[in-house]
């Protein structure tokens, strides 16, 4: 036990003694790990936030089906759907996108009483009349919109809206650049009457399959799609896997450049230490003890590098709002997203990062150290 402690302390001293090498290896580890940890944290954060909002949302999502895709659904069966046993509430929505000047915003048309709970006005009030809107706080800040201001928007129709409230939502990103408006105004704006992009159905637990059967009867020959929470959840997860995939692909390129650097730097200097190993062997050190010492050194340096990388990743997310990385995961954001990123630093990715660093430094150093400690001491002494 004392022996291993001694070796651990010596490993620490050696890292201090070979300071330049320690710093170089550390920098390489940090350069590789920081973007990785940042990306995972952002992705995890957004994923969990999306899943939360799916969970808090409706039980069933009804749309019509065109070419196997979700399409707008007519409102003509609204009353019949409402009457199905087990349906507690239905919410028709129009969710669309439109430019407010140069900025793409998400437009939600919804009846006043159906505005989702997490959306709360931080100033002003909820819309009452036609052509009144509430806007997300980030959007309001961006365009310097205040209560009572008017702005015009053009999609299919040009309409002039009055800001009556500014809201924030728990789920930071989604609410940040949204505009909520009365259902019919959104219909006008997009030039569609009597349709919703989807109808959300809230149901009593355990009634989903009966509701589905009744809907089948109602829609007869019309193509419609009914999706439940689990499916939506799956879509969200799949979407993230895709985005993570895109990021990984780019990241692999970066790693391909960074890994040789770690390998070289962690092995480099060991040849310079070959003589040191020879001296150790000549004075009675066992090969295993030498290898243990070098492994400890790599362990410590990986731990140090990974810890710094995690701290930097946290700074990146908190201080620089995930610049350059967040846009992989959130569509249409500028370099510095101007809202709090929902990042989650889970222990597993941090551990994986550390393990990855350890693996790399070990791979880089193990061969040369093994060579140095297994050749006869005379040979290492001569170098």
């Amino acid at each position: 036990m004392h022996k291993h402690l001694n070796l651990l302390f010596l490993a620490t001293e050696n890292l201090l003694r070979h300071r330049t090498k320690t710093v170089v290896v550390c920098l390489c580890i940090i350069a590789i790990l920081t973007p990785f940890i940042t990306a995972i944290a952002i992705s995890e954060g957004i994923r969990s936030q999306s899943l939360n909002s799916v969970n808090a949302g409706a039980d069933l999502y009804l749309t019509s089906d065109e070419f196997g895709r979700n399409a707008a659904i007519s409102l003509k069966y609204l009353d019949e759907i409402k009457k199905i046993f087990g349906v507690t509430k239905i919410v028709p929505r129009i969710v669309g996108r439109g430019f407010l000047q140069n900025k793409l915003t998400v437009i939600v048309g919804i009846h006043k009483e159906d505005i989702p709970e997490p959306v709360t006005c931080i100033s002003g009030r909820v819309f009452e009349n036609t052509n009144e809107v509430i806007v997300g706080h980030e959007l309001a800040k961006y365009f310097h919109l205040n209560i009572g201001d008017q702005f015009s928007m053009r999609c299919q129709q040009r309409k002039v809206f009055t800001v009556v409230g500014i809201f924030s939502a728990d789920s930071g990103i989604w609410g940040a650049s949204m505009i909520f408006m009365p259902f019919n105004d959104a219909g006008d704006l997009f030039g569609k009457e009597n349709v919703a992009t989807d109808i959300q159905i809230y149901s009593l637990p355990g009634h989903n399959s009966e509701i589905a059967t009744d809907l089948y009867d109602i829609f007869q020959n019309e193509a419609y799609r009914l999706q439940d929470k689990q499916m939506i959840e799956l879509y969200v997860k799949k979407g993230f896997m895709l985005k993570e995939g895109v990021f990984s692909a780019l990241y692999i390129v970066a790693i391909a450049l960074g890994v040789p650097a770690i390998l070289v730097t962690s092995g480099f200097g060991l040849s310079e230490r070959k003589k040191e190993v020879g001296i150790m062997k000549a004075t009675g050190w066992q090969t295993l003890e030498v290898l243990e010492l070098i492994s400890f050194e790599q362990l410590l340096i990986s731990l140090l590098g990974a810890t710094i990388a995690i701290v930097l990743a946290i700074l990146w997310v908190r201080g620089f709002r995930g610049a350059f990385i967040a846009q992989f995961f959130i569509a249409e954001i500028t370099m510095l997203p101007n809202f709090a990123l929902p990042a989650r630093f889970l222990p597993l990715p941090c551990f994986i990062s550390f393990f990855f660093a350890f693996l790399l430094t070990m791979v880089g150093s193990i061969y040369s150290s093994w060579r140095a400690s297994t050749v006869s001491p005379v040979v290492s002494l001569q170098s």
Partner: protein
Amino acid sequence: MIRTENLCKSYGHHSQYEVRAIHDINVNIAKNCFVVFRGPSGSGKTTLLNIIGTLDRPTAGKVFLYDKEITSFSDIAFARLRREKIGFIFQNFHLIPRLTSWENVAYPLIPLGISLKERFERAQFFLEKMGLGDRLSHTPEELSGGQQQRVAIARAMINDPEIIIADEPTSNIDEETSAHILQYFEELKIRGVTILVATHSAIFEKIADTVYKMKNGRIE
């Protein structure tokens, strides 16, 4: 105590550039003997001492230690022998750069699990004995050759070895320190240590029990 049987070592074996560093070396060294191998440079002294000291393996022949044939021992057993029985002193000191004197001296004790305090105390004891009590925290770069060699001797003694192998210990240092080292070796001999010294000069001959004259890899 130490015996060799037809010990041979060739470099570049089986090639046209084969160098026979030593051949057919037969020596028999009794316990507590002071043995000097004297010969010109290139005569195979270092090669012989390295093989006897388990730092290298012979091409042919055998080495016996306490009547046990050690040539066939594993590397692990060799390392254990070096740790428990043998202390080395080299011509060019072989100290670890940037480590202080006492750290260099105590380095072999680290894998033995000995505590920092005890390591320091033991290193201090031997360094004071070598007259370096005021150089405990100097690094090799801050010491003269003679001082470095005395640090190396303190390191060789730290495990209380039964055998000291010194390869031209005085070749790179001043006469005054050489005299000091000579005196110290005599002291070690009185304490029962077996000492093997390689040298090309005559200074050890007056205290040696046996002198082997070496030339071209053979003992004359």
